[in-house]
């Protein structure tokens, strides 16, 4: 059994081995207990500085990383772009070099450009954790999804997963596909054909443009946010039509497996890709995902910075 991660950074689930994924999930299980205590803090990362560098808006992920760092006693500094030198024209490279000069122990970065975390990981000596870059990867989301699935289903191998929605623009889908394939899960993607990338089969997934079929056989359904800001490009005719054809509601769930679980990485458009009664219903694990996100990020911070 391995006991540390090979790479200095966590850029994507593509680079992780199945053993590394299991190490993260097992460590997260131990971390989860800490969040249930009255005193939710352990001294493991005392004296370590973690910088959250967010070039894109985020509530869940940024807060989750901040809480994760604080529960391990690290000092967490948040930089959001609207208040940083970036608005004064500083390049990403200069920002990274300046942060490096302050000796951080980890930098968590979200950026609208794919490849930004990889780029700064080559400049920074400390671990860099990707909190979402463009349409590339969002590895901590995929890992917390796996954690949540394993918690409910006990075993990952052989599970059928349907990821439904805007696959083309989704870093969550990509990270999940890489990670789930490694864990021996069977992934189907579904949604309007304009939102499913050509050649996606090469990633090792099945395509189903019939959402009903994708729902029927699935042990796990992951609904993706329909990115309303991309509506102008005319990738689908109307939100109402999208909702009717591809949105998950009680009616479509009738043919689902009895023990199906439903997840969504958030933020949700209630009434668009998922109806309110399904989002709040008995199959939904959406809030468990948020709880588990803290544990998974604690595990990653500890594994990457604990032994430095």
């Amino acid at each position, binding site marked *: 059994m391995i006991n540390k991660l090979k790479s200095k950074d966590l850029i994507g689930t593509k680079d992780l081995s199945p053993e590394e994924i299991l190490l993260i999930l097992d460590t997260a299980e131990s*971390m989860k*207990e800490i969040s249930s205590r009255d005193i939710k803090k*352990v*001294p*493991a990362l005392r004296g370590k500085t973690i910088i959250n560098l967010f070039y894109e808006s985020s509530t869940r992920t940024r807060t989750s990383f901040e809480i994760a760092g604080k529960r391990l006693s690290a000092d967490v500094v948040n930089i959001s772009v609207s208040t940083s030198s970036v608005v004064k024209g500083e390049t990403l490279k200069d920002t990274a070099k300046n942060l490096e000069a302050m000796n951080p122990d980890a930098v968590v970065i979200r950026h609208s450009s794919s490849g930004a975390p990889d780029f700064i990981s080559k400049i920074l000596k400390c671990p860099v954790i990707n909190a979402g870059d463009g349409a590339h990867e969002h590895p901590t989301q995929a890992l917390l999804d796996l954690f949540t699935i394993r918690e409910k289903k006990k075993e990952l191998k052989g599970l059928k997963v349907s990821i439904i929605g805007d696959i083309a623009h989704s870093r969550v889908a990509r990270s999940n596909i890489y990670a789930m394939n490694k864990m021996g899960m069977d992934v189907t993607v579904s949604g309007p054909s304009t939102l499913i990338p050509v050649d996606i089969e090469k990633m090792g997934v099945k395509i189903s443009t019939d959402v009903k079929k994708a729902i029927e056989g699935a042990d796990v359904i992951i609904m993706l946010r329909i990115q309303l800001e991309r509506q102008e490009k005319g990738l689908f005719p109307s939100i109402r039509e999208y909702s009717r054809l591809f949105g998950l509601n009680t009616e479509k769930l009738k043919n689902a497996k009895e023990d199906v679980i439903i997840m969504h990485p958030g933020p949700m458009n209630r009434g668009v890709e998922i109806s309110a009664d399904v989002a709040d219903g008995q199959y939904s694990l959406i809030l468990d995902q948020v709880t588990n996100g803290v544990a998974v990020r604690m595990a990653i911070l*500890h594994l990457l910075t604990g*032994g430095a």
Partner: protein
Amino acid sequence: MNTRVMNADEVNRAITRIAHEVLEKNRGAHDIVIVGIRTRGVFIAERLAIKIKEIEGEAIPVGIIDITLYRDDIKSDISKHIVKKTEIPFSITDKKVILVDDVLYTGRSIRAAIDGLIDLGRPANIQLAVLIDRGHRELPIRADFVGKNIPTSHNESVKVMLKEEDGVDKVVVEELDDK
């Protein structure tokens, strides 16, 4: 060179004696909880609870503490330690906590375990029970209950083997290779 310092019977007798001493010192089993330090402290803790039940007829709650996140020597040790779960599914506040480990050496693990316990509540007191005390303390810590004192040198290692983990009950002292 290996020297066997305790066999299975001796390990068993030591734990039995500690059980009696715990009950004597605390005038019974009332308000006592036992917490074992991962890994081998846990098995000794469980055995201690069984003995106490046999003697006193009272079931004692047993918990597990993982000290990985509290260690001060984590820099050198991270590669050896995977974070495991702390499982103490009962309140330790106002309880007499018997903290159990296999070997007492520098005292640093015990310091970490005490910090961990205090984060979980405010016990009435914490008492320390160890199977082996091998000396060489680096912190002002002593055990309340000791199975056996074994004077050692720094270049020896004390290996406690227990059925639950190692298939056999015994304690051996090994000479470490000089570098």
